[in-house]
């Protein structure tokens, strides 16, 4: 089978799975709506102000979309970052960018932003501002005046910057008005919520840009595994590759935090799962991560909002519960030397 065919088949299969999961997710929720009513709502037969219409179209559908977009972005960023740093433990949050974005949002929430639509957009803007600050800091540390990015330093710089912003968030929390505290902590746990169509559209565009940046360099990422020097000797512009991938992964990660909140482990687990199934070729991993990540987070979020209904678990709880044992599994298999 030609590699094109194999890719198309794999992505197609996963996409079908995603659609099936999304469709199923439409039918489950806290509000008791019959499947027939859900279908009526989707096809437009139900009245626009009816419960099934509002719940299905204004709550469930946007939430499913956010989960899919966020999962896709995190998984692709994870693949990119793991390939860039040649480190299987690399996760988008280690970039430091999500810490900066979270800091931006927490600052905004502390000042009570979010009450009006412009303020909600302001929160998103603050998230990107924080992310940009963090990315600039990471780049500055990693380039260290030489003008070229040192990969080992990049990882370290990301961790340092992430820790710094984490500490800054902790400072804010310790000083925060008691009434706001609950809300800020709730956001920090990582909870998905429906967002307006405009924001969804913007999220989708940013995802497409980040995905494009990474996908167009998937072949070079394979070569990077040979080491920077060897990759350069094969004709790869290593500096531009590093910068492009860093920018793409940062954009994806920042978008997730801005539109969906801080969610961990997706960017770690999904790439590894896919690598176990499909092998190490990034040309396969990047597109399948897009669809596979979307499916993964969608399943996690559907569980989160239904297992203890009407209460909701944070989706971050579900992904962490998957993440910890997964780490153990990773350590054991690598320790035994099997690949």
């Amino acid at each position, binding site marked *: 089978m030609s590699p094109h065919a194999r890719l198309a088949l794999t992505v197609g299969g996963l996409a079908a799975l995603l659609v099936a999961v999304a469709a199923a997710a439409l039918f489950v929720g806290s509000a008791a709506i019959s499947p027939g009513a859900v279908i009526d709502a989707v096809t437009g037969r139900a009245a626009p102000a009816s419960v099934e219409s509002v719940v299905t179209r204004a709550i469930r559908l946007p939430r499913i979309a956010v989960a899919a977009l966020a999962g896709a972005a995190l998984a692709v960023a994870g693949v990119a970052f793991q390939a860039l740093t040649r480190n299987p433990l690399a996760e988008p949050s280690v970039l430091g960018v999500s810490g900066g974005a979270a800091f931006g949002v927490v600052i905004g929430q502390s000042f009570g932003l979010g009450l009006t639509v412009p303020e909600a957009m302001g929160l998103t803007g603050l998230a990107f501002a924080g992310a940009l600050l963090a990315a600039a800091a990471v780049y500055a540390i990693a380039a260290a005046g030489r003008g070229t990015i040192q990969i080992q330093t990049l990882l370290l710089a990301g961790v340092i910057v992430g820790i710094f912003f984490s500490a800054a968030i902790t400072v804010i929390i310790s000083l925060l008005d008691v009434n706001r505290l609950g809300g800020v902590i709730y956001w920090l746990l990582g909870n998905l919520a429906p967002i307006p169509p405009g924001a969804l559209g913007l999220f989708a565009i940013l995802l497409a840009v980040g995905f494009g940046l990474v996908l167009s360099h998937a072949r070079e990422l394979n070569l990077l595994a*040979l080491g920077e020097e060897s990759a350069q*000797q094969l004709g790869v512009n290593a500096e531009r590759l590093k910068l492009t991938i860093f920018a793409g992964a940062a954009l994806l990660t920042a978008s997730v935090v801005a539109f969906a909140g801080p969610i961990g482990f997706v960017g770690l687990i999904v790439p590894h799962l896919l690598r176990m199934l499909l092998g190490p070729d990034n040309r396969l991993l990047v597109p399948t991560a897009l669809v596979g990540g979307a499916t993964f987070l969608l399943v996690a979020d559907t569980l989160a909002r239904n297992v203890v209904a009407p209460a909701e678990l944070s989706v971050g709880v579900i992904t962490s519960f998957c993440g910890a044992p997964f780490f153990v599994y990773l350590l054991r298999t690598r320790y035994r030397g099997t690949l």
Partner: protein
Amino acid sequence: MRATEPGRTSLRPPTECRGLAAPAPVTPPLVEFRSVGFGYPASARHRARPFRLAGLSFAIAPGEIVGVIGPNSSGKTTLIRLLTRVLEPVEGEIALEGERLQSWGRAELARRVAVVPQGVPRELPFTVRELVLMGRYPHAPGRFFENPADVAAARSAMEATGVLDLAPVPLAALGGGETQRAVIARALAQEPRLLVLDEPTAHLDLRYQVETAALVRRLNRERGVTILLVSHDLNLAAQVSDRLLLLAEGGLVRLGAPEDVLDETLLADIYGCDVRVESNSATSRPTVWVPYTTDASPRRAER
């Protein structure tokens, strides 16, 4: 045709002469270094003392095998990096096929010059086939997947190094010798005119050292690939190379036929220990050996 020097003593060039010792090649050189200089930036603290490559001038003729020898930190690796544009020279110029190296694009350069590094990174998860196909990148960097022509070229390269049977095997499962052959195949898949091998026999068992040497000579004779072989193994370099390039402390000390370059006094001076060179009737190349059980001090010139 390569020239071989008759006796050593009468035609041995003076040590101060830095330049071509062999007769100038008839065809235009494939690679030319003209007074190339390089120094790592002052901030590079990983070096005990500042390193500088200076006044390096030599040429490599198409179709020949040149061995680069010298002590550690003499500039052998730096030479490869300069040749492949991983580093840019601070002084002088490098020419490939008569054109300045700077005017070559990266992919273009990779289609001419292929480097066989000392191994592959540990835990590289790819199969032999996937590794060899990576060598096709410079031929179409914009292409996402390799096309049938790429697959055919990779196949041919694997055949030449005898790893075709191992194509679907993960690299992690291979031994040292097989891995080396896979890496050479990857370089061959680039279809280069010049193949640069960086310490190809380091860490290899004797059998695989012999295999690698034979492979290198076969590639040179049957495919006309020009070879630049960097090695600390003086005997291997002597037996395989047409000419030897001796580097020490960033400078070219001697370039010429093995018999001329492998001079006892010179080597003792450069390596800082007692070195013996003997002629070997079986290989018609000099053999270098070192007396390990005596005091390591340079021998005074007596002979």
